[in-house]
């Protein structure tokens, strides 16, 4: 298979410590893949590498056949924290990556899509945590990337807001045919959103296990939480991380 996003990391070190070694992952176009694993297993490092924020590694990345060598217009990233610029209004944050003539109407439409209609002129300090994360998602979508990287984007919000944001993201990604790589600690979230769940090992190496989530979209949240895959993933997590 020729992957749309091809990730091949031979080695990534943080000082003397090897974080990733011999890790390969290919994503099909429009596929949503979740990376799960214990803290420190290299999930977020992998996302930083794919986003082009970390170039100190041995390996190669390809997107639609072309090499990825740094931050790329086709790759968006939503961080764990919203990371909005506090001195810019919400709409200015959304268009931050645009050139000199940003499309404010498109930004406002995106804000409406994420449930923040009328918030364009607000400052980030006037938003709740969930609202700020929605603005960050709108920023991630504004430049119409083909790949969206998500680094535990819902971990800092309450359970109800998390469900709303998951639905919002799933809708936005499926409608746009986005290829999504999601880092999460939440197995239910991974099962609800993804086409595949990749379990990373605690020791640097290839993926420990891979689980195909064969369920049509839209999905029933309770049914996904009761999926037989969940105990299988949890068992693998226990084995991989001896938790």
């Amino acid at each position, binding site marked *: 298979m020729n992957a749309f996003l091809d990730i091949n990391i031979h080695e990534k070190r943080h000082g003397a410590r090897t974080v990733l070694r011999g890790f390969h992952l290919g994503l099909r176009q429009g596929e949503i893949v979740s990376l799960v694993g214990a803290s420190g297993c290299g999930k977020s490092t992998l996302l930083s590498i794919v986003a082009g924020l970390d170039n100190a590694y041995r390996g190669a990345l390809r997107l639609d056949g072309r090499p990825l060598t740094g931050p790329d217009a086709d790759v968006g990233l939503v961080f764990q924290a919203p990371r909005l610029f506090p*001195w810019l209004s919400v709409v200015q944050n959304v268009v931050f990556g645009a050139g000199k003539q940003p499309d404010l109407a498109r930004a406002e439409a995106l804000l409406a899509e994420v449930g923040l209609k009328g918030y364009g002129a607000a400052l980030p300090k006037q938003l709740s945590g969930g*609202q700020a994360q929605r603005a960050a998602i709108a920023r991630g979508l504004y430049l119409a990337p083909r790949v969206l990287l998500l680094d535990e984007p819902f971990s800092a919000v309450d359970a109800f807001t998390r469900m*709303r944001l998951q639905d919002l993201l799933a809708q936005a990604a499926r409608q746009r045919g986005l290829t999504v790589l999601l880092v999460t600690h939440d197995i239910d979230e991974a099962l609800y959103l993804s086409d595949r769940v990749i379990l990373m090992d605690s020791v640097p190496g290839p993926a420990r296990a891979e689980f195909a989530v064969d369920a049509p979209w839209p999905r029933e949240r309770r049914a996904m939480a009761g999926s037989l895959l969940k105990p299988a993933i949890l068992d693998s997590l226990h084995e991989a991380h001896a938790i």
Partner: protein
Amino acid sequence: MERQAIIIDAPPSLRTRRRRPGFPLGLLLPALALIGAEAGVRAGLVPASLLPPPSAIYQALSWLLDNGLPGHVAASTLRVATGFAAGALLALPLGALVALNRRADAILDPTCQALRAIPSLAWVPLLLLWFGIDEAPKIILIAIGAFFPVYMGVVAGIRGVDRGLTEVGLLYRLSPFALARRVLLPAALPSILTGLRNGLSLAWMFMVAAELIAASRGLGYLLTDGRESSRADIMLAAIVLLAVLGKISDSAMQAFERRQLAWRDSYTARETR
């Protein structure tokens, strides 16, 4: 299928509530001090030759007003403004350069830190030797005083910028210049403005040091004149004027700071009831 509607929250009101002006509590201590001093001198507890009562200081101020006070105030204010502007205009780019460029940091910062440790008065003889007793040594001394707080504010501000924000800038492929302009400098603004405020305050202090030594006009000169003629009322009048002018300039800077940092979500002390 589960409901997937997005609930739209009501947008926030962007208007800020105006606080009703109340009694300016900052005047309480000076008012009490003035009343205490007046009463103490009138009761004979303190000799008026050492501590003239506020009424005598007021009379001295009235007399000075007809005898060249505006000229003295203008001379001092102009020196502070010129020296502060020169020091700050030099410190802003130099601080940014040191904070943004490792080589510049290695070359310039150790020297700046060593110069910062020199007491202000140590410069005076050298400046007098080099530039005579005209305006230049006074302005340069004030500029030296204003330079270091601004420099420190810029360096500390840029170095303290949240790495997460710079990563967003890098993600959007900003050039180093654009990253500095659009992310680092705005994020460092609170520290830079604190540096400017401290620099302005030190500029007033250095102005007095400069005028005490060699001046024929200015509030520092009034202090020397009062000492030489044993007029404590004139000295205190000059001190009061220095306090008032320093407070006015600091309040103006504080208002500018508040306006520039309206976006900041920081702790503000609330009134306790």
